Each structure stands twice: as structure tokens, then as C-alpha cells.
């Protein structure tokens, strides 16, 4: 299979990545090259094979529902682009 420019635009929008018209052709070429590589999978009969999410097949470990971390809001917000009174600032969303 190969991707269409329309599909690339849609996926790029979903991923919040802009692909300029100048980059579109190279991007499409690269992605189609990679998908050709990936297509090798489709010929394999995997009926009845359980998907493997990770190596040890462990269930997620649960922890007790108690506070274990101290509040370090100031330290974490010190690296934010814009904050005010302990809140992260972003462009206005609700009019």
C-alpha cells in the first residue's frame, strides 16, 4: 500500500504536526518507503497468536492509594513556559 497526500495531512493534523507544502513530497516518499518495509508483516499468518505487549507479560502492579510524593509545584512550574498563581497559562479557549 502507499499513503496519499490527503492521508498524510490527516495524520499530521491528528499528531498536531504541520507539514508544509514544500516538505509534503519528501515526507510522503519517506513514509511510503517505511510502509513498504512494514508491509512484510501482512504476509504472515498470525491466527491464534496472542499479541505481546511487553516481554514479561505481567499485569500492571497496583500500589496503595496513599500520598507518597511531596508537593513540589513551584519546582515543576519553574520550567513551564508561562504560569501565574500556580496555574499554567495557555491561549484563551472558552470565550
Amino acid at each position, binding site marked *: 500500500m502507499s499513503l496519499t497526500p490527503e492521508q498524510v495531512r490527516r495524520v499530521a493534523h491528528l499528531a498536531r504536526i504541520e507539514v508544509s507544502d514544500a516538505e509534503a513530497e519528501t515526507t510522503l516518499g519517506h513514509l511510503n518507503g517505511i510502509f513498504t518495509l512494514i508491509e512484510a508483516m501482512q504476509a*504472515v499468518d498470525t491466527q491464534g497468536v496472542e499479541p*505481546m505487549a511487553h516481554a514479561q507479560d505481567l499485569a500492571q502492579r497496583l*500500589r496503595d492509594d496513599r500520598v507518597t510524593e511531596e508537593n513540589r509545584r513551584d519546582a515543576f512550574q519553574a520550567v513551564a513556559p508561562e504560569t501565574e498563581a500556580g496555574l499554567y497559562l495557555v491561549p484563551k479557549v472558552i470565550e
Partner: protein
Amino acid sequence: MIKRSVAALSQALAVREISSVELTQLYLDRIKNLNPEINAYITVDAGKSLSQARSADDMRAAGNAKPLTGIPLAQKDIFCAQGWLTTCGSKILGNFVSPYDATVIDRFNAAGAVILGKTNMDEFAMGSSNETSYFGPVKNPWDMTRVPGGSSGGSAAAVAALLAPAATGTDTGGSIRQPAALCNLTGLKPTYGVVSRYGMIAYASSLDQGGPMARSAEDCAVLLNAMAGFDERDSTSLDRPQEDYARDLDKPLAGLRIGLPKEFFGSSERSGCSPDVMQLVEAAIAEYRKLGAETVEVSLPNMNLSVASYYVIAPAEASSNLSRFDGVRYGYRAAEYSDLDDMYAKSRTQGFGPEVKRRILIGTYVLSHGYYDAYYLQAQRIRRLIANDFVEAFKQCDVIMGPTSPSTAFKLGEKSSDPVQMYLSDIYTLAVNLAGLPGMSIPCGFAAGLPTGLQLIGNYFSEARLLNVAHRYQQATDWHAQLPSGIL
């Protein structure tokens, strides 16, 4: 002094032949002289390193020294270290001074080790040449016109050029083993779940694993002893008793069964591997026979599917992991934007490099509605087939051997315009991550003056055995002790 192993430096510190402050300064001076050309480090902070070294010397004076106390180490810039710029090789984290320590850093700090600096890497560990770094490519100390491999290319170049006695790396598809092979180092990717991923910036969470890179198996064992261990902050960390990974280093190899996958050595796959690399790998296996090992042919029939499976699973997980970079809570925010959505898009578009964007796009596509079953689930089923192949193979052997990389270090720029060619440089390493097994690369000789790596793959939790197999070879050969010219 700088040619000494971690074990020997530890001894020198113990007998007060040198202090940690002096030793750290020695490396800082070398970094100052050589790093402008090699570009192995993104961040060096002499003040911070020396202050850690002073604490280490105090720790020793107080009688509390451990094996790594006072040893300066290079940390891959994927590990968050409090107060240190932690970029992951990306513009989007170009201003991120971490407010916390990764568990690996925490453990090294507790052991009294010194952070020499943060090493260059492919952006978000996505690459096999270190050329995708926002902070520029790293040069291979063996030939400055060639790549050091990737993604832990800065760590590899730093250790190879004696800009650090050892370093950390991370390995999602070969990112410890391949640069180790290309820079004449010993590198170990542990069993998935042995080293905590907390504070190790995520690329593909089900594959990522941190590990040591050093000039010998013995040094890797010393580092792994500090790095490995259960961590409740990592939900996939394995709760197992603490091990001494150096315990079996000297065990004789008589009776060791080495599995040689016919897919690595057979004629069809062989065409993918350069003949001079294959020749050195076969010579290394002959050396193992001399050491008392026997060889048996094994088969990994689904090996050829590992590239396809990996390039679905890893980008899928990456697209999810990297959705957190949105210009809101940390990292780069675009200077101009119209609304919130535009701020996300502009920050990400300007903050990520082309390879990262490609993988995010692939991952977003394979996870999108209508394609999930055909790609992601199919890739996970094939992953099971690949893992099952290893289970079968390990019924017949103790360790699997083959090449680490199909070629020696390639030229800077040689593969950077063709992602598929770049991806194929990891054909021998990807399956190990998919299966979650431990793997190593050890130096096994030189082809046209460039280092070559022998890959060792072990069964789950066989790190101590792998280190033993590597160490005995390094007692019998001196490939690993060779240093590039022009760095002293």
C-alpha cells in the same frame, strides 16, 4: 590514569593515589580539549561535577565509600538529572532543566558517582548514527569522518575517546549495542524491567532499557550493579532480589553452548552483512571454541520480520509518549501562534526534528481508527513469534552469538537522507528488544582500522552469565583494550 578501567580507578581512589576531585578535573580538562571536535557531550558543568567529587571524597574520608564512589561517569542526556539541562537531543527540551532525578541517576548519586556531563544522542533516541541530534552529530573517535552509531553515540564517543571511564546508554532497538560495536566498547542491554525507566525520557516504553557502556565487561558489571534494581516508580520494573552481576566473571567457559542462528550466518542473510565483519565474528567464535565452548546451529525463523514489527511498535508507542510535548508545562513553546491548537502544532512542528516527526506520523497512522488491527496488533503478534523463536533456541544453547551491526562505522551523511537504509543497520539488534532479552556487544577486531562488535544474546536474567562469557573472551584477547590514535 585515564587509561585505567573503572575497577582500577576505584582501587586508585581507595588507596588515595588520587582524589575524586583530581580525577574529575583530569576528565574535565580532556573534555575541554577534545569535545569541541567530537561533540560527545551536550552539557558539561565543571562546578557541579567538582562539587559532587568533593562530596565523594568526603564520603570516602568518612569511611562510607562504595565501588563507584568518586568515579566520574558520562550520563546519556535521556536521563533526567536534577539541576542539569536534560535535552534528550531535542530542541523541544532545549531549555529543560530537570527538577528531579531519574532512578538511575539517583542510584549513581547514592553510590557516590560523579556526573561528568550529559552526552549527545539521537533526538529522543530515534536514530542509529547520532545525526538526528538537535545539537549536531557526534564524531567517531576512530575516524572523525564517520558516525559513532546511535542513539547512544555521545556516550560511546565519550568513552572511546577517554572523555569518561564509562557511561550510561539506553537501548530500544540497539542503541547501546550498535554504538558500542562501532566505537570498540562493551555495552550491555539488560533484560526488560531490570533497570528502572523512571526519569528516563520515554521513546518506546515496552522496549526501552538503560544499561552500561564501558571498555570492558568487568566495568559493565560494576556499573550494572549500581543501575539495576526494583523501582516502585516504574510500573514495569521487576521485583527481584538484588544480584551481584560480577559474581561469575571468572567462571571457565568449558561446556558453554553457543547458538549460531542460521539466519545470521546463512548465505541469504549474510549478504546483508559485510564480509569483513562476518569474518571477524567467525574468528571470535573460533576463539570461544578454544576457550572450551561448543557451537550448535539454531534457528530464529521470524528474525526477518523484526524490522517491520519494530517500526510499527516503536513509532506507535513514541507517538503516544511524545504527545506530552505540547508547549504547556515544560519545554519549547513557539513564539507566535493564533490559538491553543495552533500553539500545540507550532511548538511541536518547530520543536521536533524530521526523524522524530516521521516516527510520530507513522505511529499516529498505525494507531488510527481502522488500521490498529492490521498494523499494531499484527506487529504485536509477530513480536510473540519472534520471542517464541528465542525460547526454542535457548533450549539448545546458553548464549546466542552473531554480528552486532552489519557494517563498521559508516560515513557522516552516508545514510541520513534514506530512513529505510538507516533502519536496516539495526537488523541484528531489534529482535532482542522485541523479545525483552539481555544483549551485549563486545569488540572482536578491526576491519580496515574500524572496530567491529560481536553480539551476545542471553536468556532472560542471564546478565551475569553474559558478562562472564564476555569477560573470559576479554581475558584471552585484547581487542577491547585498543584505543583510537590521536586522542592522547
